[in-house]
Structure formats: structure tokens, C-alpha cells
């Protein structure tokens, strides 16, 4: 009698303790739903199709992750500036939002290993005669506010001490301003630049060269203290490459040379 009461007590205690220790990974598995923050104004990583359904590399990546976890994916559209509030207020579980893993940001959120890497390209208005990155000196240049390239370009303009930097809220606004001649040139990810110029939606602009920024590695992110989930995400990124799914998705959405996700000569 006494023994079974004790056992029951121990089991009950274990259950309570177990519940108290459930981490975010458990929460996701338990709820059967994975909510991803995705930026849908950033083709080809995130955008909407004719039927207004979210599509893109990041959307597929989130779906893969949900499938691996055995849950259903829910895409939560979050513009660039709203990624962190969405995570902190518990509206999303994971950010699959082409987020550059800067040290400054890592003080606030937890990043995985890189899952994608961008090269930066300069796109210029044809009338300006800008033909390279250095030619931008002294001109009015712009980029999407809050992105890696915007931060780097603004720093460069300040260093040159000549010319103006203007951040716009969306990629579409940047290219609109560029084709109107309000901006002379912009720096964006080469994938976006190529896709936009080829789309033919904007006249009088062309991709003129590479921007000599460090490769922009982007990572998945979640709460800084969720080691269980971060660990799982790291392995997931690794498996995506190992199984060839990364190459497959890259070919589907971007095409061309597959960027390496490995930084030479250093561990992570």
C-alpha cells in the first residue's frame, strides 16, 4: 500500500517536473505545429504566388523542417523589422527569414549555423554611368532598411564621407526609386538583383558588378536560451546539405553555382 502510494507520488512528481522542463522543442512537437517567421517581400527567398500563397526558398525550408519534426508548418509573414518582436512575443517559434548572423544581433537572439549565403551585387540606373562598386562614391545610394547590405552600405557611405544613403522599407520601393532616378545605385543580394532586372518590371537599370562585402551568411534563429531547439536546427541545416536537399532547393529557386556554407579555416 505504502509502496504504491510512494510510486504514484514519484510518478506524479516526475510528470510535473517533466512538464516544467518541457522546452521549446517539446512545445512544438506537442502542439503539432511549427510557426515560422518568413519575410515574403524578399524574392526568391520569400514571396507570394498568383494565388497569394507564400512561396520561396525560405517557405520550402520551413516546410522541410516541419516535416522533419513531424508537425504541420505555419508560415507567419513578418516584415524585416518585425522578426524579433514576433519571436519574443511568442507568435512564431523559429525565424526562417534570411537573417544575417551578426554578433550584435546574437546578443539578443540565438542563431544556428548558416543555412544560406548571399553574394552582394551592385545595380545601377543606366543614366548615371556607374559601372562598378567604387563608382558609387559621391552618389545617392540605397538599400532595404534593416538588411545586412543596408548596414554595410551605410557604413561605406559614411567612410567615403561623400554621397547619401537612403534606406527604403521594401525591395520593391528600392528598385522603383532606382528606376525613377531617385537612387543612382543600390546594393542587394545578387539573387534579388538578377531576378528583378530580368523581371522587366523596372526600366533603365542593370546589374553592374559585385559588391566587395564579406559573404552574407544567414541563419535560422530562435530564442537564445533554447539550446535543445538550436541543437536540432543545427543538425537539420547539416542534414539539408548532406541529403542534397539544399542543392535541390537552390536549383529550384535561384540556380547557378551553389554557395558553400562553410567558412574556411575555422570551427563553428
Amino acid at each position, binding site marked *: 500500500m505504502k509502496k504504491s502510494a510512494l510510486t504514484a507520488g514519484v510518478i506524479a512528481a516526475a510528470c510535473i517536473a517533466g512538464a516544467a522542463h518541457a522546452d521549446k522543442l517539446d512545445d512544438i512537437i506537442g502542439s503539432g505545429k511549427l510557426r515560422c517567421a518568413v519575410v515574403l517581400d524578399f524574392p526568391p527567398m520569400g514571396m507570394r504566388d498568383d494565388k497569394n500563397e507564400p512561396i520561396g526558398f525560405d517557405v520550402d525550408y520551413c516546410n522541410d523542417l516541419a516535416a522533419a519534426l513531424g508537425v504541420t508548418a505555419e508560415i507567419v509573414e513578418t516584415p524585416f523589422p518585425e522578426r524579433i518582436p514576433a519571436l*519574443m512575443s511568442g507568435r512564431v517559434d523559429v525565424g526562417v527569414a534570411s537573417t544575417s548572423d551578426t554578433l550584435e544581433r546574437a*546578443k539578443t537572439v540565438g542563431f544556428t549555423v548558416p543555412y544560406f549565403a548571399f553574394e552582394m551585387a551592385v545595380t545601377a540606373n543606366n543614366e548615371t554611368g556607374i559601372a562598378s562598386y567604387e563608382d558609387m562614391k559621391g552618389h545617392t545610394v540605397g538599400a532595404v532598411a534593416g538588411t545586412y547590405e543596408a548596414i554595410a552600405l551605410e557604413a561605406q557611405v559614411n567612410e567615403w564621407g561623400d554621397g547619401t544613403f537612403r534606406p527604403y522599407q521594401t525591395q520593391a520601393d528600392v528598385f522603383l526609386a532606382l528606376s525613377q532616378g531617385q537612387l543612382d545605385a543600390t546594393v542587394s543580394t545578387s539573387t534579388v538583383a538578377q531576378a528583378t532586372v530580368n523581371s522587366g518590371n523596372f526600366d533603365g537599370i542593370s546589374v553592374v558588378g559585385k559588391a566587395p562585402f564579406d559573404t552574407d551568411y544567414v541563419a535560422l534563429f530562435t530564442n537564445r536560451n533554447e539550446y535543445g531547439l538550436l541543437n536540432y536546427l543545427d543538425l537539420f541545416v547539416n542534414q539539408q546539405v548532406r541529403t542534397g536537399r539544399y542543392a535541390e532547393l537552390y536549383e529550384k529557386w535561384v540556380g547557378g553555382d551553389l554557395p558553400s556554407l562553410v567558412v574556411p579555416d575555422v570551427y563553428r
Partner: protein
Amino acid sequence: MFDYTFQWNQALARLPRMLDGAVVTLEVAVLSMLIGIVFAMILTLMRLSDSRPLKAIAATWIEIARNTPALLQIYMAHFGVASFGIHFSPFTSLLIGITFNNAGYLAENFRGALKAIPDTQARAGRSLGMSSLQSFRYIIVPQMLRISFLPMTNQMVWAVLMTSLGVTVGMNTDLYGVTQDLNALTFRTFELFAIAAVIFYIITKIITLGARLIASRLFRY
């Protein structure tokens, strides 16, 4: 569940830049009010005039300014006019957009104030030998400004808050633009925007209190 540790020192270190932004915000708001009042006066006079085209222009301006979002007006002042080859800097675009909006609202305020002044006032002026312009200038306008003074402060507060829409046209030197820049850099969203909110609150509070003080001095009788 709200899982976040506030680190105020990280955000407070950027306070000087935010205060510089607050100055720009105030600059835009004050300029847009001053120019807006001038335009509002002109619009009011146009509405009072006997010329149909002038009336129509004023009515159209006021209708658009009051019945479309300020965001649209600012966006148009940047991207809209650019499709005709006219380029304004973000600062100018924002200023034009808010001024356009201010003028429309203020013109309506002025019209309401004019309606509140009995016709007999102007006639009393005329009977004292003033010309119609003089009686308008010395009798009607001062009373009009007095009646519409507090609604004008309202618009001033609104102008300060509208500056936050400048980010849509590439503005990054005003308080909201600076805050958003810093947010992208650090991801300290909650601290930075909380500080920005407090600064906005202080600015508008100073404006309303200052206006009340001025009103109690100017309009004692």
C-alpha cells in the same frame, strides 16, 4: 509567454543618436505647421472668394488632404511626383506630405472658426470706416486664430506623430527612422521603441503644455 531579457544599457548607449533624431522630427513638424498655416489661410480665402475655379481648387485640396491616408500623401510626394521626373529628397517629400495634410485640416479649422464669428463683427468694422480687407485683417483674423488655436495644437501633435511615416520614403534621420536603423543593427526592439515612445510622448506633452501656457497669456480676456 514573453521570453525576453531587457538590457537597457544597450539601448541607452544609443540615446544621443535618438535625441538627434528627435530634433529632426521637431524640425519637420514645426516647418510643416508654419508653412501649413500659410497655405491654410490661402485655402480659406480661396474658399471665401467668388471665383469658382479658386473655390474648386481649395475644395479639392481639402477633400484629398482630409479623406486620404497621410501615408499615401507622403508616398505620393516622393514616388508619385518622381514618375513625372520631379525628385525630392526624403526630408522634402516628408515635409511636403505633412504640410499638404496640415493645410487641409487647418483650412477646415479656420472655416469652422470663421463660422463662429458673427457677421455683425465685420459690419461693425466697416461702419467704423475700415475697408473690407482691413476689417478682415484686424477684426476677423485675430478672432479666427484665437478660436482655432487649440485645434491647431492638436494638428501640431498630429504632425509630430506623422513624421514617423517618413521611413516609407527613405527618411532615416528622424526619430522613428533612427530607431528603426538601430533596431536593425542590434535587434533591441523593445528597449529602443520604448525609448522612442517616451521621447514622442515628451515632445507632444511639451507642445500641449506650451500651447496651453501661450493660450492663457494671449487670450486672457
